[in-house]
């Protein structure tokens, strides 16, 4: 990671920057709260937090239009909030309550929203890659110009099905954007210990898929890259790969002590590259927003997250007959 740049005044409006700030902050505060509820035993099983990576999904969503689809791995809370799903429904799913998006039957890793075109939430590493290409296939088949954002990590990028999918997606010209969220650790295995490839996007070349590496800690860089990728897909030119260089601050899951990296490494990224601080600096140092204005947003976000947490505690557990529903459509 490069050292921290002095914030230049970018060619974006105050409103846009505030929107990014608000959305990234919502994800961070939501995840911190989820971590807290996990510690209290209100959330069970696996819980993978997105803290640190917020700029990726917020930047990419800024380039999406109604009708576009998205799906990701089990580290999915941020993606759901970024595409407009209700924090209450997401948090209540984490606590396994009837008010959750899957009525408490999916949990942290398996949530969906037809309304927001969010297709999961997938627990099997790499499985979402062909699934995402399949969603793109449905749009190609119907002849519309929707695209599908298919997110996966640097760990999933070594799965064989990813390359089967690259081959078919390019062969059939599918409107799918493969978003590799390279947070540099596949659970505890650093990318260097998993592959000799220098980049991950570069592997697309073998299949004829263009791509690029992007600073995933910079929300505006993420948005700009997404716009390029989206334009490529909507123009019927087939898939595109975005390798988003990012970093997760927390462990792989709640039970991961993250002994495979140093505290210094994490602290360095937090102080030099944090995506939320970056936008905050742009707003304050550029004179676009006052501290008070930002504090008011912080307060507003905190209220939303607290409301979601309360809802997730108050919502009842699913009635026992829910055991036997939804097995078949």
């Amino acid at each position: 990671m490069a050292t921290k740049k002095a914030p230049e005044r970018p060619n974006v409006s105050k409103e846009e920057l505030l929107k990014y700030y608000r959305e990234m902050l919502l994800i961070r505060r939501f995840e911190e709260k989820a971590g807290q509820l996990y510690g209290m035993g209100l959330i069970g099983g696996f819980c993978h937090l997105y803290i640190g990576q917020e700029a990726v999904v917020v930047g990419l969503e800024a380039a999406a239009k109604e009708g576009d689809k998205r799906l990701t791995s089990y580290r999915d809370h941020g993606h759901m909030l970024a595409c407009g799903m209700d924090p209450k429904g997401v948090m209540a799913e984490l606590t396994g309550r009837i008010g959750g998006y899957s009525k408490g039957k999916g949990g942290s890793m398996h949530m969906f929203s037809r309304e927001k075109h969010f297709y999961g939430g997938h627990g099997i590493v790499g499985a979402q890659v062909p699934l995402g290409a399949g969603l793109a296939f449905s749009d190609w088949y119907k002849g519309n110009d929707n695209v599908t954002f298919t997110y996966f990590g640097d760990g999933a990028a070594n799965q064989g099905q990813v390359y089967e999918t690259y081959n078919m997606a390019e062969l059939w010209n599918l409107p799918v954007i493969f978003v590799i969220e390279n947070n540099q650790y596949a659970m505890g295995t650093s990318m260097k210990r998993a592959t000799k490839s220098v980049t991950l996007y570069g592997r697309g070349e073998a299949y004829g898929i263009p791509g690029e590496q992007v600073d995933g800690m910079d929300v505006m860089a993420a948005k700009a890259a997404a716009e390029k990728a989206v334009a490529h897909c909507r123009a019927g030119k087939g898939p595109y790969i975005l390798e988003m260089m990012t970093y997760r601050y927390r462990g792989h899951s709640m039970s991961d002590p993250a002994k495979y990296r140093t505290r210094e490494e994490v602290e360095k990224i937090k102080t030099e590259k944090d995506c939320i601080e970056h936008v905050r600096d742009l707003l304050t140092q550029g004179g676009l927003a006052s501290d008070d204005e930002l504090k008011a947003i912080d307060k507003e976000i905190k209220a939303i997250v607290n409301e979601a947490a309360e809802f997730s505690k108050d919502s009842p557990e699913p009635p026992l007959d829910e055991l036997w529903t939804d097995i078949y459509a």
Partner: protein
Amino acid sequence: MATQVLMPALSPTMEEGTLAKWLVKEGDTVKSGQILAEIETDKATMEFEAVDEGIIGKLLVAEGTAGVKVNTPIAVLVEEGESADAAVAAPAPAAAEAAPAAAPEAAPKAAPVAAAPVAVVSKASPDWAEGTPVKTMTVREALREAMAEEMRRSDAVFLMGEEVGEYQGAYKISQGLLDEFGPKRVIDTPITEHGFAGIAVGAAWGGLNPIVEFMTFNFAMQAIDHLINSAAKTNYMSGGQLGCPIVFRGPNGAAARVAAQHSQDYAAWYAAIPGMKVVMPYSAADAKGLLKQAIRDPNPVVFLENEILYGKSFEVPDVEDFTIPFGKARIWREGTDVTIVSFGIGMTYALEAADKLAAEGISAEVIDLRTLRPIDYDTVLASVMKTNRCVTVEEGFPVGSIGNHISAVIMQRAFDYLDAPVINLCGKDVPMPYAANLEKLALVTTAEVVEAVKSVCYR
């Protein structure tokens, strides 16, 4: 010395074929490797090459003859100045080296008989009213008709798989579909089952109705994560938001002489999965009616076909839009002494055994489950309550078989009606061997069914 040219076996399951065209005539000199004839199997039209050099002394089977059994002499090769008559009179060799086929009995002398399909006729069909016009067709034709009709009905239905398009189907099930529906709806895939199964599941979530053909279900093992984790579980995991209307179909179970990796029955595997529906038809009518139903079902359906049954003919009702609901077994034969429960190719042995048993005064009721999820317990239980004895017949492995499950249900719900322990006949607990004699031993047989029935009848 004159040599006989024998009808070749051109696929693992071929027993007879059509001599479509001779490319040589009597008196021609042929070299080894030269194409002698075009032979039509149930799967494809193949070129047949000469192994030996010589002069075509006599063509024994006329062009266009259908139903020529494997190993029948079809021509005589002679040397310069030699007469063909001696070779014609000579008996055919027991098994030609070039044709290690499944027809061990001495081939009949060139006496071509048109293949008259032998239709298996059931006495009672629950699926169509008496007097309904029927036509005779093969399971293969029935499957193709089902797909074609459903693709005409809805633009959202499409077929994808290896060799389904330009090749016309590895087993000819999709023959003609590319011509009618075009490459957008009949999609040839690379040999990447894991990837294309996942793409198809995503397409189903996106509002389409994919039919995924696995060249055989053995290869679906590469993709099984998407069948189970992605297709079957997501409706539940999404609280009912994301149903997956998709059909995974293809041949399942042993064909002939293709050994362990290509000969496995997955019925019990898929039937174990909540969220999946599993169909395993025996007859052509069931193949058609159940496949149409499967394509319309809003859930993932595993549709297990059988290569050996593809060429078998049955009566199919000649009506528009014939479908069969899932979860209804068919009683093929009514009886009073014992219930034989089977499905898929197991029905072949069950019905043959019932015939033999009838000759010995044992009346067997034969039930075809047809769908393994949902499963029609009521029909089985009602029958067992009447006959008090039960034998199950299937090709899959014995541990955790469908028969085990049926037995457990009978024990729990009809224990007092049983006069003998239920016997589960299955394939043997071994990987499928290649050697013909061992393969035969590994499969369930009609003789075993007869013996098991006698055992539960204490005869």
